[in-house]
């Protein structure tokens, strides 16, 4: 497996929540989307993807439903709940604060995306 950039603890949850905020998706889709958006820099191993999804579900931030995939195959879709959306917002805020602070310490100006 190609080594991916090590994700900071808790960052994976944030990435998944962000990805799911666009539309409900199945696990495979989430992994592909993150990989594509990050231009292959971030590859999520299945060994951590599914535990993370389960964790988010147990916390009530995402909800899993069975549906049909694009090729008409039964698949489990994850959808962001209202609680998940609130969680995403607060995590994004924290992220911005943190990355800006780290940027300052490292002497780099970081373009704040939001």
């Amino acid at each position: 497996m190609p080594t991916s950039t090590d994700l900071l603890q808790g960052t994976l949850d944030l990435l998944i929540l962000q990805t799911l905020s666009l539309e409900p998706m199945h696990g495979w889709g989430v992994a592909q989307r993150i990989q594509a958006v990050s231009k292959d820099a971030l590859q999520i191993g299945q060994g951590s993807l599914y535990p993370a999804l389960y964790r988010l579900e147990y916390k009530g931030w995402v909800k899993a439903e069975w549906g049909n995939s694009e090729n008409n195959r039964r698949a489990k879709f994850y959808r962001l709940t209202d609680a998940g959306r609130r969680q995403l917002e607060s995590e994004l805020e924290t992220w911005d604060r943190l990355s800006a602070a780290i940027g300052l310490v490292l002497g780099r100006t970081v373009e704040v995306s939001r």
Partner: protein
Amino acid sequence: MISELLTRIRFLVFRKKRSEFDEELRFHLEQSIAAKVAEGLPAAEARRQSMVEFGGVESARDECERQRPGWWLGTVAQDVRYALRGIRAHRWFSAAIIVTLALGIGLNTMVFTLVNAVLYKPVPVPGGDRLVSIQNRLASRGDTGIPVSYPDFEDFRAQTTQFEWFEATQDEGVVLSENGNPPHEYHVAYATAGLFGMVQTKALLGRPFAPADDHAGAPPVVVLSYKVWRDRYAGLQSVIGHQVRVNGQPATVIGVMPEGFSFPSGVELWMPLVPTPDLAKRDNRQLRIYAIRKPGVTLRQANVELNGIAARLASQFSADKDLGVSVLTFQQRFNGGSIRTAFLLMLAAVGFVLLIACADVANMMLSRSLVRQREMSIRTALGATRWRLIRQLLIESVLLSTAGGVLGVGLAESGVHWFDFSTQTIRPSWIEFTMDFTVFGYFAALCILCGLLFGIAPALRSSKLDVASVLKDGAHSAGRRRGGWLSACLVVFQFALTLVLLTGAGIFVRALLTSLSINPFIPSTQVTTARVQLPATRYKDDDSRERFFDELLPRLRELPGVSSAGIASDPPGLGTVGQQIELEHAPIANPAQRPWISFVAQTPGYLETIHLPLLQGRDFNDTDGSAHHEAAMVTRDAAAHLWPGQNPMGKRFRTFDDKNKASDWITVVGITADLVQEIQENDPKPLFFVPYRQKKWDNMALVVESSGDPLQSMRKAVQSLDPELPIIDPFRLNDAIEHQTWFLRVFGRIFTGFALIAMMMASVGIYAVIAHATSSRTQEIGVRLALGATMRNILLLVMKRGLWQIGVGLAVGLAAAFPFTRAMKSLPFGIAGSDPTVFVVVAVALALVGMFACWLPARRAAGLDPVKAIRYE
């Protein structure tokens, strides 16, 4: 927020189905393969790569399962079930651990509860933690218990600022009488009016003292204790206002106190402390002060202030010269000295039991954990994490400890009850023995920790071991050296402590046996004694007292069923009076160096009543003791002591009173066999007998030998001479002597109990160690047997190690027992101290028990079938 919580709770209860996860994974894989096929890879290769990329399916599934809140609860239940199965499977082992823990926890809790109550706990009255006892102190004599005079008390009370309450009592025995009720002697406290207010106790009936009750000239009143009210007045409400006579003087009953109240201690009647001309003298020291400090005032501050006042009084009044003040808690005041020593010894003994118990638990856990190395290795090999192994062991220990703890509480409870019951008659009434659960918590924690430490540490070590080598070779070789050394040390330690305990118990038992076998010639079950106190108000001079006893003695002898009667200052075994003497022709210049003797004053015929043989000379006659007829008898011991190598008959000596005034010369007229008059004295003084007429005391004991119960007729005989006179302390002689030795009986039982328990634990400990060592050598023993080793060889082989440990343990224990027994010698209860026979007996007994414990596994080993033993694993 709430929906989040609900989600979590829902998942706590409902699990996801396994198939759900499988299906999701299958979907994932298919997608992955499809993507790779789309990139142009052949189907088989795409599938292979996808599988590789995915990694371990099982571990991913596990990881997902672990995200579930509370997922570990299920495994805990699993561990509990497993542990219970283990406990049941090794039921002897488990029972031994549980009982050991129960004894360790229970006994220590019990003794700490007792010691706490006797030495530290505040008196159970409101503000009891600030309650103190105050008395005068004479630094030059080291005496802190001198009573206080009434004027000094008033000065202290007027000048002190550190106390909320400041009251005094004068304790006395008085005779309560009235028409239609026999006179009876009671313990009265003459108290200042605030005594009841100080301890915030209201009367059950009527009223306690009013402030005016202790003023001079106030009408005399008396407050009854519940017990007197119930026993003497049958609990009648109409007792309030009743007229009684106290020592012949009229008084009115004004109140009854609630049940169990007897403040300061053992009081049966309370009367106001009314100042009299006699009390107003500064050198008449009669009072004990009880006071409650203001909140925040320490004992030291109270001491400093009162000593300041005392110093002013000392410079002002010659009677108060050199006198200081000691402010002490009740425990310090009343439970010092030998009581303190006894309880601290008990604490030490039970501490030993605790150490032995801990060592036992440690040893058993240790040998068990060595046996379990294999089990642990298998579990590790099957994928159990270290944490899971530790948790499993923890759960097992906690289960065993809980069982031990529950049993321990029961043990402690009943022990405290037993002690409470056994000491009911002699302990001060302000001591309450109630179970202390904080203390219980500490000991439970200690024992359990010990089990955990020794159960888990070796298991942890073994879980680090090379799994393969343990599985291959069996647990026997792994870690045996170190475990063996540690458990040997624990066994030595146990045997040493047990020997110390056994020695202590042995000394108590020996003293008890000695006390039971004293004065064997006295038929003590047929001898009844009771005292008579002639009140000074009606018996003013020597003649009136002499006449009373002269008239009483013939009446006692004529009572039905009475075969013999006498009157003596103290019945046999129940004390003496001491005096300094000087022998004729052997003057001693320095009064301090004159020898002390003990003596008993008695009427003619007393020797017959107690069956004391007269060896030479004669008993007293009716003229002995009158002027110019001073006479004495001596015991054989006393004669040998004071006139060694001479016949004491006709020898003369004189006595000195406390003002150093010499008596007339007294002639020895008889020699008796030896009599033990002071049971609790280690080193009794030479014993003399003198005629009653020579002393003419007002307080004498009537001693009657009779077949039935003569008490009623004795009382009638006394009251036919003086209807106002009660008889005091009626006793069968054997009961009285038993009462004297309560300390030996109670503490002897406790120490013996502790020692036997310790011995049992030590034996179990050595048995466990030897049995474990033997079973790990089964194959070796089989080989030896097959090669022709005899039964004797095998027995020796197995027992050698145990015998070594016992030997070393006994040697260490003997060395440690000497200081312990020295501490016991300071107890003034007739304990002889280090007696070689006690040491020998307990050492031999312990060695035999230990050898038996070693012999059991050795015999089993020697009886092995070599073929089976070699195949044994």
